């Protein structure tokens, strides 16, 4: 279980508080108006932003004091998830060994992850030679390879068309299912939330609310979410 206990992040004049927990294995959509602090919330969980108050726990162990790489999670950003000067293989392999000195077994694991994400044969390509969908898959291949119990998605597929985005989300669902990971995913589209997430967490007016069942929430949204969705 991921727990935020009296957590507060303050940046300049901006303040976000969170008092919530996410059950293990849950898939949670993070929704809310632009600028409400969705990325801030994920950034704090991923260890990039310090808490000004409170703490974050994973399975009862405090994690907000750890370095980003030591956290039990993988995160995909909106952009810049791959190093443009490294090959696809190296980019994915970084998930196993950050100094890229791989054992034969590790090399096989990288190839397997590429195969499972439909990227076989593209190992030597640089990101500039990949399509948007392939770049998305490459990020997910690394997530799969790292097999951390928590996956955070900060809209990595926002630039893709609807069909391609749905493919990616299906792949996310499969990976989360295979590894039993807990998923937190920022999205603007209620359809994304319906498709993949049993729970939805609303970030609005300086507060991240506890996750609630997606269908019920979308059927009867609280005022801030209703205004955002335009329903």
């Amino acid at each position: 279980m991921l727990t935020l206990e009296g957590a507060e992040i303050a940046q300049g004049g901006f303040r976000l508080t969170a008092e919530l927990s996410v059950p293990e294995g849950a898939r949670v959509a993070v929704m809310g108006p632009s600028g409400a602090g969705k990325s801030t919330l994920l950034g704090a969980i991923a260890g990039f932003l310090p808490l000004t108050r409170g703490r974050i726990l994973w399975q009862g162990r405090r994690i907000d004091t750890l370095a980003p790489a030591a956290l039990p999670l993988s995160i995909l950003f909106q952009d810049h998830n791959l190093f443009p000067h490294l090959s696809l293989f190296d980019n994915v392999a970084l998930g196993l060994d950050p100094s890229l000195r791989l054992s034969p077994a590790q090399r096989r694991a990288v190839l397997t992850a590429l195969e499972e994400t439909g990227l076989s044969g593209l190992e030597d390509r640089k990101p500039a030679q990949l399509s948007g969908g392939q770049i998305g898959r490459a990020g997910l291949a690394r997530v799969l390879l790292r097999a951390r119990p928590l996956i955070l998605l900060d809209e990595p597929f926002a630039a893709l068309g609807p069909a391609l985005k749905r493919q990616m989300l299906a792949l996310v669902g499969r990976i989360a299912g295979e590894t039993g990971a807990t998923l937190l995913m920022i999205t603007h589209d209620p359809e994304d939330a319906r498709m993949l997430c049993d729970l939805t967490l609303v970030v609005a007016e300086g507060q991240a609310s506890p996750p609630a069942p997606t269908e019920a929430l979308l059927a009867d949204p609280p005022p801030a979410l209703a205004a955002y969705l335009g329903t």
Partner: protein
Amino acid sequence: MTRPAPALLKGAAALVAAALVLLNLGALGAVAWRAEGGAGWGAADWAALRFTLWQAFLSAVFSVALAIPVARALARRRFPGRGALIVLMGAPFILPVLVAVIGLLAVMGRNGLLNDLLALAGLPRLSIYGLQGVVLAHVFFNLPLAVRLLLQGWARIPAEHLRLAAALGFGARARFRHVEGPMLARVVPGALAVVFLICLTSFAVALTLGGGPRATTLELAIYQAFRFDFDLGRAAMLAAVQAGIGLAALLLLARLTLPEGRIAGLDRDAPPPPGGLSRVTDALAIGASALFLLVPLAMVLIRGLPWLGDLSAGVWWAALRSVATAALSTALLGVFAGVLTLMALTRRWPEALGMAALTASPLVIGTGLFLIVNPWVDPAHLALPVTALVNAAMALPFALRALLPAARRAEADFARLSASLGLSMAAHARLVLWPRLRRPAGFALGLGAALSMGDLGVIVLFAQTGGETLPMQMHRLMGAYRSGESAGAAVLLLALSLGAFVALERIVGGRHADT
């Protein structure tokens, strides 16, 4: 989100900072301390101060004024060789000053092409020496720089404005008033300031084309006080004044937004350029500027190449010393720039420290260092290491300008990804920073090597006969009226400077480092 810097890097940064502070402030301190006991400020010194400011002012005005039609023509015309011409406009930066001076002498000197033509026509010969020669040489170096700065201004005019001007049927006057004029009003002050600053510390040009009571810059006066009178007090006082001007210029510089070195959006589609008379003026501007830049260089090659086989042993030894100095200087530059770039990712001071050399004068630093080491060691023994060190510090601002934006962009784009994957500082540097930085690093080191190879500055204060670098040896040959051999040495120096630049840019920069 900042990674703590490893102890080794912190130690290296402290050493580099100490060396640079000592170089900038220590030398100034020595100069100031010694200047107090100096002789009075005389009429000749006033003349040097006046001339320094006046020639810098004229050089800036002529360079920028002439650059306007050239930049406009290059911005709106498309013709074969346009790209090459724009690249050529960047070349004077790494061109050794004495090579250009020899080229200008070959065209406009006493026995140059132009005077021969004038004599044929029965007209009196013109003299290149004095104010006109100093300004001419400065325009030769800074016209291309001004063109590149102004070209950016043209490239930044939104394409919609140009289309709008065409759609509304603007004539030349309306276009200038509403589109080009406002852009120039923003860009020209910065360009003027840059050229003015560069010309303030002019030494090699004044040494070769100026001189005498009416054409001596402060830098040249420092050298003369040193070399001819060995009046250290007076040299120190002149150096203090030069340093004061530099400081004033630094304050001026801080108020202006300087144009950047990169030209973006230059090859976008422009609306069809105006025809009629402007076609002729544009062609004239491009043709004249190309001739002005290319003919002197061609003359160096024409006069110098036949001499290459007959160069005296002294020239070859001097060339060897220059190569050694440039190698040491480039290595120092690599260490300085590398350490400061890594430190500058999380702090502000390394950039300020590195940029401080932008307005420092090599002769002032040289004077200070001479005063510091003189009681302990024979300065002649330190001529080459000191030259290497000063040149490294002088090239540092340009190196940081190339490296820092790339490093900051790499950090902004990838620091979080690196941290989330757990890359160590070493792995981050090897896998992320170096691949993103090797191209600007190759450029910066190549620039440093070329600048150091061609420098005629601080070396003249330290070196004695038998310890000359190649530019210094060329100056000796010119002084002895051995113009053929000096042109031969110029070809050698040109080859070494360009060779060093191209080699480092290729080897360090790699062929396809970026993607």
